[in-house]
C-alpha cells in the first residue's frame, strides 16, 4: 500500500521550468508528471543526506550549512554546487531563533562554544523576593 498524499507539483509550472532552457522544445504529456515524481524522490534524498550531517553535529534544525556540506560531499548532487555557492559560509550560529521542535520537551542544549546563548536566568528568578 503506497501512501497517497498529494504531493504532485503543478504540471504547468514544471513544464515552464523545463522550457526555461531554450533548447528544450516539445514535452510529452507524461513527462512533467514523471519529473514531478522524480523531484519528490530527489527532495527526499537530499533531506535524508542532509539529515546525516545535521545529526552528526547534534543539531535539531537542518540548516543551509548542512545542505551545503552535503552537496559538496555527494557526487550525485554535483549539479547543485552553484546553488549552494550562494549560501554564505556556514557560521555555527548558536543564536538561533527558537523553532518549534515537535515532540521534544527536553531542554537539551548542546554545549558547543556558544557564548551568545541566553544564560539560564532561572536561578536568579527563583531567588526573587
Amino acid at each position: 500500500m503506497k501512501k497517497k498524499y498529494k504531493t504532485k507539483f503543478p504540471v504547468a509550472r514544471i513544464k515552464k521550468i523545463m522550457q526555461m532552457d531554450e533548447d528544450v522544445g516539445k514535452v510529452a504529456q507524461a513527462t512533467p508528471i514523471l519529473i514531478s515524481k522524480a523531484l519528490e524522490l530527489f527532495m527526499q534524498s537530499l533531506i535524508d543526506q542532509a539529515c546525516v550531517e545535521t545529526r552528526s553535529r547534534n543539531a535539531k534544525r537542518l540548516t543551509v550549512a548542512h545542505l551545503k556540506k552535503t552537496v559538496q560531499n555527494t557526487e550525485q548532487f554535483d549539479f547543485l554546487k552553484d546553488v549552494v555557492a550562494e549560501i554564505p559560509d556556514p557560521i555555527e550560529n548558536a543564536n538561533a531563533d527558537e523553532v518549534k521542535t515537535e515532540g521534544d520537551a527536553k531542554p537539551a542544549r548542546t554545549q558547543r562554544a556558544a557564548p551568545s546563548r541566553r544564560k539560564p536566568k532561572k536561578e536568579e528568578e527563583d531567588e526573587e523576593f
Partner: protein
Amino acid sequence: MSTSIDDNELPKANVTRILKHALPASTALQKDAKLAISKASTVFINYLSATANDIAKSANHKTITAPDVFKALEVLELEDFVPKLQEAFTGTKMNANYHISYKAALY
C-alpha cells in the same frame, strides 16, 4: 550565471508538504534551508530536462518523452529513483511507452 527567475519556482505549498513528510519528527528546518531546497529543485528540473532533451535529440525525436527521462536518470547516476518511478507509472495510462506530443506545447 544566475538565471533565477522567481516566477519559475515551485509553489511553496507543495515544497512544504514534501519536506514535512521527508523530515524526521525530531528535526526542524531552517527557513533559509527551505528556500535553498526550493531552488535546488528548480535546478534539478533543469538539469534533468536538459539531459533528457539531449537523449531525445540523439534518438531523433523532438519531443521529450518518459523513456527519455528514465534514460536521463541513469545518465545522471540517479538510477536509484528508477524502480520507484516505474512502480508509480505501471498500470496508469502514463505508461513509459506512451507518448503524445503535448499539443499545448504550442502555447
